[in-house]
C-alpha cells in the first residue's frame, strides 16, 4: 500500500509541475518526504481502533500487559509495515523524478532515520483519536503539525554538506520514538473510561 502510494505520487508529480529535469531534481526529494509522511498516516484509523472495539486492548490489560508496551509494539509493527517498503520504493520513485545519485543516497539515509518518527506520530495520533468518529481526518490534523520538524530536517538533509540536518532528524526521531509509548499508553488508558 505505501509503496503503491509513493510510486503513484512520484509519477503524478512530474505531470503537475512539468517535465523540467532541473526543477524535478530540486523539488523531487522534498516531494518524496511529503509522500512518506502521508503514507505513514494512510492506515492511521486501522492502527488502534479495531483492537479497541474488539476488546483486544481490554484483554491485554487484564493480563497485566501495560498500555505503554502495547503502544511500543504497535509502533514497531507500524514501522515495519511501511518503513522498509518505503525506503525501497524511494529508489524507483527517485528514478521517476530523475534525482541524482548523491541526493538519492542522502534521501535514503534520511528516510531510514526519519520513518521511525513518522511511525511514532501515526501511533500517537491513532491512540488519541481511537473511538472518535471521523478519526482519520482528526488524526491527520493532529499529526501533521507535529511532523513539521521531521519534514524540515528531512528535506533539509537533501542538500549537499548538510550532515547537521541528518543529526537533527535523528534527534527528532529519538524524541518521538521515546515519548510516543508513554503518551499513546496514557491516551489508551484514558480512552477506556
Amino acid at each position, binding site marked *: 500500500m505505501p509503496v503503491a502510494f509513493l510510486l503513484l505520487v512520484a509519477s503524478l508529480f512530474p505531470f503537475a509541475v512539468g517535465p523540467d529535469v532541473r526543477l524535478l531534481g530540486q523539488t523531487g526529494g522534498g516531494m518524496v518526504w511529503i509522500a512518506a509522511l502521508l503514507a505513514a498516516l494512510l492506515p492511521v484509523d486501522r492502527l488502534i481502533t479495531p483492537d479497541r472495539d474488539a*476488546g483486544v486492548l481490554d484483554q491485554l490489560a487484564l493480563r497485566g500487559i501495560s498500555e505503554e508496551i502495547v503502544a511500543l509494539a504497535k509502533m514497531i509493527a507500524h514501522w515495519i509495515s511501511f518503513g522498509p517498503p518505503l525506503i525501497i520504493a524511494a529508489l524507483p520513485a527517485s528514478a521517476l523524478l530523475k534525482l541524482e545519485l548523491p541526493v538519492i543516497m542522502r534521501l535514503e539515509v534520511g528516510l531510514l532515520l526519519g520513518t521511525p518518527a513518522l511511525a511514532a506520530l501515526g501511533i500517537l495520533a491513532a491512540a488519541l483519536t481511537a473511538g472518535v468518529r471521523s478519526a482519520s481526518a482528526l488524526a491527520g490534523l493532529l499529526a501533521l503539525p507535529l511532523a513539521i520538524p521531521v519534514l524540515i530536517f528531512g528535506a533539509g538533509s537533501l542538500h549537499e554538506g548538510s550532515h547537521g540536518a541528518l543529526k537533527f532528524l535523528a534527534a527528532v526521531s529519538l524524541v518521538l520514538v521515546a515519548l510516543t509509548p508513554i503518551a499513546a499508553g496514557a491516551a489508551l488508558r484514558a480512552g477506556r473510561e
Partner: protein
Amino acid sequence: MVTAHQLGCVRGGRLLFTGVSFALARGESLLLRGHNGVGKSSLLRLIAGLLPVFAGNLSAFERMAMCDEHLALDENRTLAGALSFWAHMDGVSDNAVSAALECYALTPLRDIPVRMLSTGQRKRAALVRVLASGALLWLLDEPGNGLDAPSLALLGAAMQAHVANGGCIIAASHFNLPFAFTDSITLQNPGEPDDAHL
C-alpha cells in the same frame, strides 16, 4: 480471593453506585443483579482493573479472565488459531484450548474462521477463552446472552466444574443461569427508591 469494601463507581460524571461490599473465598460465586444501566458491567470492569476505583477498597489477588460483549478474537484466523494466541499470552498449552473447545462442543468448528461463527458460537468461543486461560477468577458479563438451551447447560456445567476446583465466579446476568450462586448483590443507582424495580 477478592474483597471489595464500599466500592463506588463514577462514569461520565454520573455516580453509578456506592457502598458495594463483598468478599469471595475460593469456590464461591457471586451474581450481580440490577436493571439495565445500573453498573453491573462497570463493576466487573472495575474488578478487572479496567476502570479506576472512585471510592472504597478493592483487592483481587488472582489471575482473572473476563468474558464481556467483545469477542477479542482475530476474525480472519481459525477458531483454534485465534484462541491459541490468547493461550500463549496466558502461558497455557494448546491442549488446554482443545479441552475447553470440547467442553463447549465447539471442536467441530475449530478450523472455521472466526468471522463465520454465529452469535451463540461467538459467545461460546469467548467462554472457551475464559476456561482455557486457567485463571481462578472468572468475570462473566451476561454469559448466557445468545446461548440456546443446550449451550446454557454446557455453561452451567463448566461453571460448576470451575467452582468445584476452587475457582471463583463473578457474573452479571439479567436472567437465571443454570448455576447456583453462593451469593448475590442487587446494584442500585443512588437516589432511587428501594423498590424501584422489584
